[in-house]
């Protein structure tokens, strides 16, 4: 690990800024592509009309949502090239599976509406399968990362658990999105889905939170090491409260006048944020657990400076027009018109 006191100005803070930006990109990705992947997984077999509405609800957004993944992996590539190589070397096959899944769903989305009518169901299946493959692969990769890429049975079992947990999380936020963007039977159905997925996700988070400190001494120390860290326990506590709120709401959803249709989505997003902070706190300053810290992996300061100027100007612009796009398409999804 790098001795921080030997680093001067830029060489110290540029990698810190970029790890923050990367975290932000992956976090936004998990929320945004999370809900559209979740919607893809939830596509019901028994109703074509519901499938159409569900896909219409993510139509204007999925493309930009997926771009956050490119930004996240891009920052890893640009700012921490050594880590990018090391991580992707260890994740070669899961990455391939994820990419195949993303390719399949991205194109199925367009083909389903344009191919001959009798192929539509096939493309819907491809959309669902692709979404599921992508989320399982992402969860699996997260699990392997947490286990420091150990090639043991235990690590792979943990990764499988993480795959299910991440998939449950994405389906939860997907169902929560549908509660916000749809009405009638589909909305009722989404509430049912959301509640089941929330339970599964909660179980997953608890499992990961128990396993994580047990397998890593460093992480154990970070969470149980000093009496001051008791403050940190706000994170799991707050998580629990959010799950409780979502569950109580979903039990009787939907409500008259669509009361609080945003509550499940907001809770899901907050739970994502808290889990994210928990993970980030556990691993900082390592970008590859116990092998490579952010200063060892970072690019030259002159390269990071050059890209930072761009980020300062462009990132707020991106957030601005993303906000604009969501405002244009606010409201229920059924009235979307596609040209």
């Amino acid at each position, binding site marked *: 690990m790098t001795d921080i006191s030997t680093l001067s100005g830029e060489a110290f803070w540029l990698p810190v800024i970029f790890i923050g930006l990367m975290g932000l990109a992956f976090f936004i990705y998990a929320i945004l592509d999370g809900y559209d992947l979740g919607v893809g997984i939830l596509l019901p077999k028994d109703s074509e009309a519901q499938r159409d509405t569900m896909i219409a609800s993510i139509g204007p957004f999925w493309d930009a949502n997926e771009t956050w993944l490119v930004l996240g992996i891009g920052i890893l590539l640009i700012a921490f090239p050594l880590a990018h190589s090391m*991580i992707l070397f260890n994740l070669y096959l899961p990455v*391939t599976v994820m990419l195949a899944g993303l390719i399949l769903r991205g194109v199925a989305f367009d083909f389903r509406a344009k191919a001959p009518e009798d192929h539509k169901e096939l493309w819907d299946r491809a959309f669902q399968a692709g979404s599921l493959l992508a989320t399982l692969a992402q969860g699996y990769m997260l699990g392997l990362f947490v286990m420091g890429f150990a090639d043991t049975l235990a690590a792979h079992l943990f990764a499988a658990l993480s795959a299910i947990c991440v998939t449950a999380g994405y389906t939860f936020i997907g169902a929560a999105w549908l509660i916000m963007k749809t009405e009638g039977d589909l909305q009722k159905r989404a509430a049912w889905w959301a509640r089941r997925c929330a339970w599964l996700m909660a179980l997953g988070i608890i499992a990961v939170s128990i396993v994580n400190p047990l397998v890593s001494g460093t992480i154990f120390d970070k969470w149980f090491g000093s009496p001051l860290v008791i403050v940190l326990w706000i994170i799991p506590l707050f998580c629990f409260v959010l799950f409780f709120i979502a569950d109580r709401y979903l039990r009787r959803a939907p409500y008259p006048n669509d009361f609080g249709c945003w509550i499940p989505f907001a809770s899901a997003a907050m739970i994502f944020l808290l889990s994210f902070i928990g993970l980030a706190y556990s691993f900082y300053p390592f970008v590859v657990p116990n092998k490579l810290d952010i200063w060892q992996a970072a690019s030259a300061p002159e390269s990071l400076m050059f890209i930072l100027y761009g980020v300062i100007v462009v990132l707020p612009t991106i957030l601005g027009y993303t906000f604009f796009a969501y405002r244009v398409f606010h409201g229920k999804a059924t009235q979307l018109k596609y040209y």
Partner: protein
Amino acid sequence: MLETLMLSRIQFAANISFHILFPSISIALCWFLFYFKVRYNRSGDEVWMRAYRFWVKVFALTFALGVVSGITMSFQFGTNWPGYMETVGNIAGPLLGYEVLTAFFLEATFLGIMLFGINKVSNRVHTLATFLVAFGTSMSAFWIIALNSWMQTPTGFEMRQVGDAMKAFPLDWWAIIFNPSMPYRLAHMLVASGLTAAFLIAGISAYRILKDDHKPAPRLALKNATIAAALLIPLQIFLGDMHGLNTLHHQPAKIAAMEAVWHTEKNVPLVLFAIPDKETKSNKYSVEIPNMASIILTHTSDGELKGLNEYPNAHPPVAPLFYGFRIMVGMGMLMLLVSWVGCWQIYRRNELSPLMLKVFVGMTFSGWIATLAGWYVTEIGRQPWLVTGVLKTVDAVTSTPASNVGTSLAIYLSLYVVLLIAYIRTLFVMARKAVLVDRPEQIDTLQEKLVEENL
């Protein structure tokens, strides 16, 4: 190790070849859409909007394929070519980063408004969204071509020892971005995209007319696309020539391989066709025009051209460059002929003869062939270097077992075959659907049907 290298190269070639098919259409297709939209705004004539509505669907499909095949690219560097980012990451990283920041988000976000927002935003904002998507796709081309050109003709950097490895460090970003081959390659590619999109529009429109489409929109699109192609192709030939001279200056081994010049000589003939033989270092069955290569490349009949003998064991393979170059140029000549004959007929009779319509249908994907052939020439022509003079391809490859690379390659290839067939079929299905539509506002996508049901 050698297997991993070969498989990784094939995989990279497969991924990038599949990917480039879609941007090469969408970069220019979006400018065509913007043009249709502007003409509609100016004239208020509904026919421009009908052309827009049909082609925006094609654009959406093409763009989606481009996006998903592009995501693969951002992972490729890490999974298969770790040595690339480890050596030149300080240069390549920011250029890729600026592509994501200035292009990807712009295109993706405003595409949503362009496709779904026509009734949700004002006409002016919708036109602006179309412009921003077109601008975004061109920006994307700008950054990626800057990086590709830097790999061909690197400038503005220095190599420094870091630990036990040599790494590139940026000195002058202006020199890195606007490196010597960049303006030529960018212009050549943008015009190539214009031609690819023009022949696609012309081909599909001709197909609709042949299928008895009596509406004015396909005729309008065909006419505009034919004129655009006829104007772009001479420009492209001129740009290609400039690019060739630039390459001769900076990468003479590439030109020697393209022209199959085995030995340095004067009065070099232009080889129209031959079978280059690398064993005997000579051309068999060659058909030549005396002195022509010297005239084209040095502008004097006895100009000397450096042969491959000057670069022992460090020149690119001859056969793919020699054939690839001839396929590209041959396709360009065919485009010139077809677009000019087409223009002549439109000028004389304001429509195309049935034979020419069939020719245009046959030329629908001619842009793909020329673009791919051209890229193969320039990329294989960079070998054995990954970054000319800085990093060899063999030194950048991953140590991942060959079996992993074989698995991923098999997955990608099967996906690509299915998707390519589906894409081409769907374009013609959409054309046939459009023929059956009588009213311009008729429901012809499932999303629209859904809207109708819910109203």
